[in-house]
């Protein structure tokens, strides 16, 4: 196997890796609000007054 096949392997991996990385990033970003809950004291969240 030569350098050309290694180069081709890098291209193939990038083609599949970029969308996968985008999906992982989107999901990781969506997870952020959870950490606000686990960090905060429960009473603070529960104390939020109902909106009328």
């Amino acid at each position, binding site marked *: 196997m030569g350098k050309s096949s*290694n180069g081709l392997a890098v291209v193939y991996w990038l083609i599949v890796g970029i969308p*996968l990385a*985008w*999906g992982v990033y989107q999901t990781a970003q969506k997870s952020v*609000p*959870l*950490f606000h809950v686990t960090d905060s004291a429960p009473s603070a969240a529960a104390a939020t007054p109902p909106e009328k």
Partner: protein
Amino acid sequence: MSFLDREATVAPPDYNRWLVPPAALAIHMCIGQVYGFSVFKEPMSRLLGVTAPAAGDWKQSVELYWIFSAAIAILGLSAAFLGTWAERNGPRKVSFIAAFCFGGGFLVSAVGVHLHNIWLIYLGYGLLGGIGLGLGYIAPVSTLVKWFPDRPGLATGLAIMGFGGGAMVGSPLSVLLMNHFHTADNVGVQNTFVVMGILYFCFMMFGALIIRVPAPGWVPEGHDPTRQKQKIVTTADVSTADAMRAPQFYLLWLVLVCNTTAGIGILEQAAPMIQEMFPRHFPQLPGGAKIASAAAAAGFVGLISLFNLLGRFFWASSSDFVGRKNTVAIFLGINAVMFWLIPVAGAAGSVLLFVVLCAVILSIYGGGFSTSPAYLKDLFGTKNFGPIYGRLLTAWSTAGVVGPLIVNHIRLQKVGQHVTGVGVYADTMHLMAGLLVLAFVGNLFVRPVSAKSAPANPDSAAPQAA
């Protein structure tokens, strides 16, 4: 000879095997979208009313509920019934047909949305898409285990990690497209289906075009199949008929069905579960607090999906070193304890512990999917891997259909009895822990396949270095 035939895909002896996993990943990342189908359920429940469900609109818990279940059921059936045909015809032709079925399923579903005909959705996404799922699932995995006989766990972990990642790509992509196509009188589902059908078809075709099979007798440099470290590994190729008669197949089926059902026990009700078990952290008050709660619960679903993805790679690739049977025993044992501890975390009011437990459980759920094909390869060899693996996938279909029914039934029964908080889920979690103990015991009984069922493999006896 057509370029789709198996013979046309045979790689030369010095072919770089690292060119093959991207083909498998491309296909699995597309069909993995099925786990993100739930993002369509809410918009599809207001196709007529647009802003809110109107009379005649499909209901999420009735008509729309069965789309995902149908696709998963057909996945298992098509993998089981078409596995032998797929092995004979080679991965390129099979992936090519899978691309037509999966992409075409989206297009038929778009027509179904346009005509507001639920049967066209069942036919498109459920039946056609399900066949695309089954064929697209087994062909790349079967190919990779042949390329990586020295690291089958790594190979199956890579491919099946792509399936886990499919939902992570598919869900935000669907939302982006629906927002783009959304108008005052259209929710945008129809055009989204058309675009996704074309996109997925093209991406799967990329995988189909670059996939290659090794020449018969090929083994990676330095690998001697007759000197396997793991006791369970056969150096022979067991026929499909003999595999179906072997208790090892049914024990592995039991392991997969129990582990999948248990994982579904969390996945199916992740968002409502965290909100109901921790009402002080997730207040259901009207307005901003409720929106923040919903966002945090969605974040929880996202986080456990990440662990589902990571577990697919971690558990399968570590099984190459620890041994398949040992890995499965370790993760089933850990999983049973995790399920038992969930009600404890709820009673203690510890969101952090609960999240950690669920993350581990989901990593094991993914690990079960990715480790089982490598386990299967160890027991029965690579030659008839496709048809045997296809039949094993009926365990997933069974769990995918029966699991949510059990979980929802118990939950609704508890809610009907006015049980609240941890009590709603405690019985389900204990039931799942019991299933995992059953699977753990089943795994202990797995022995190497007897010599009678495993005739000597001439390819293995005379390895040909790359």
